[in-house]
């Protein structure tokens, strides 16, 4: 499960941060995406502009925020804008390189459900929080990264509800719907990394974290997960990455 040195979650968080290398701007979802984006600023991308949907552009928090509206996000921002402006001018205006999202359920085409889950006959639908900013983030950012823990509950054969379109039912769907951005390019989990096959847009296993097997990932995926032609192994976290991650997390706990 873990080596002596780091946990599966840390592998996920470190690799999610690395995926932000080279990006200029990131629209940050709360939770795991926020951890990754803040770790990226502390490691691979110190100049990364963090944008939170509460209206902050260029937030530089010293601890992980609990909510997307924590005071420190506004106090450390380059600019604070009203929410309609954030969604209309900055997001819809095509100003943001990367959207970083979490998800409750993902299917093989990286479509996302965060609305309702079917709990079986005779039972009411299970209620999830809903869409938030995700549908337009996934549509309008240059590209989308996703981070979530790997399980058959999360990686499902068929979504109970499509909240946010990833690649729809395959190649061409995004273009047909007139979606400006490239959509999901990478899904980082605690087991490895999935990327869409360029030919089919279907998520395939592209890299394993150290010590994880292909079978483990397939067992934790609700569809018949295929592997890319070459499946790499992610680099283990460096001491510096782990130190930065743990410092962010412990700072975030101080005031809770």
């Amino acid at each position, binding site marked *: 499960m873990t080596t002596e040195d780091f946990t599966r979650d840390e592998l996920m968080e470190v690799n999610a941060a690395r995926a932000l290398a080279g990006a200029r701007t990131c629209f940050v979802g709360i939770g795991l995406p926020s951890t990754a984006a803040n770790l990226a600023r502390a490691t691979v991308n110190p100049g990364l502009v963090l944008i939170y949907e509460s209206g902050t552009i260029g937030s530089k928090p010293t601890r992980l925020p*609990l909510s997307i509206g924590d*005071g420190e996000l506004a106090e450390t921002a380059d600019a*604070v804008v009203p929410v309609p402006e*954030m969604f209309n001018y900055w997001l819809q205006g095509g100003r943001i390189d990367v959207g970083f999202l979490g998800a409750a359920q993902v299917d093989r085409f990286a479509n996302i459900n965060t609305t309702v889950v079917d709990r079986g006959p005779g039972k009411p639908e299970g209620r999830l*929080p*809903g869409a938030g*900013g995700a549908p337009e983030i996934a549509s309008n950012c240059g590209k989308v990264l996703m981070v979530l823990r790997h399980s058959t509950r999360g990686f499902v054969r068929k979504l109970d509800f499509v909240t946010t379109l990833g690649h729809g039912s395959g190649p061409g769907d995004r273009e047909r719907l007139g979606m400006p951005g490239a959509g999901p390019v990478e899904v980082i989990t605690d087991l490895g990394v999935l990327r869409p096959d360029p030919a089919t847009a279907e998520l395939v296993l592209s890299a394993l974290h150290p010590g994880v097997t292909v079978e483990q990932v397939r067992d934790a995926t609700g569809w018949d997960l295929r592997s890319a032609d070459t499946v790499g192994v992610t680099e283990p976290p460096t001491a510096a990455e782990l130190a930065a991650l743990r410092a962010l997390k412990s700072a975030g706990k101080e005031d*809770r």
Partner: protein
Amino acid sequence: MAEIRSLHDAVADLVHEGDTVAMEGFTHLIPYAAAHEVIRQGITDLTLARMTPDVVYDQLIGAGLVRKLIFSWGGNPGVGSLHRFRDAVENGWPRPLELDEHSHAGMANRYVAGASRLPFAVLRGYRGSDLATRTDTVSSVVCPFTGEELAAVAALNPDVTVVHAQRADRQGNVQMWGLTGVQKEAALAADRVLVTVEEMVDELTPRPGGVVLPTWVIDAVCVVPGGAHPSYAAGYTVRDNAFYQAWDPIARDRDAFIQWIDENVRTEGAVAR
């Protein structure tokens, strides 16, 4: 012109049974004290609008005062579910809750249309999402200039909008700063506007990034220091993240919830912590 009033009187006069009420504030400046006054007065059959229902609407829903919710993200930020919201939707407790559900971009634009007194707003949104299948307030419109098909969202015009702000002057002009969310749009979209403030000052000195709502668009201003708790007012209070975490076990359990509301909101003179 805004009247400077007690919270009790302002809520009693401006918030009516069956109203559509928007209590806005995006994480910051959430008008909790006003919501608690609504609970104390038992004003019911409300349609509540908020982008992020947050714990404030979890409390109103659990108190049985809400018929319908218009929203875009219903979680306890950074903590998990809103359990009273879920119980109402999944099990109809304490009463069924009708939903009108959107994305954030859609909700923000519904307020923009409302403030602009237009029938709808246009955005590039909802594409490929099932959301539009569950609401009659999202449709599409073809651009007359380019032929592009765009999402149209119906204007949202609350009967009354309630917001919290940092301060007001004695004439009832209101000033807020920090994260100002959709408060200006929600206020200008509404028929009636109630504002609670941290303090009353003689003069509103300009603030960077500040929003001023002039007294002549407001009906009542109430001085309620700490009225956003456990949300916050930048420059006055900090977000009580520990409360948001402590809310989870309270809201999970119907009896614990009722006890909390009775002890902290309904009890005469109770100051909700």
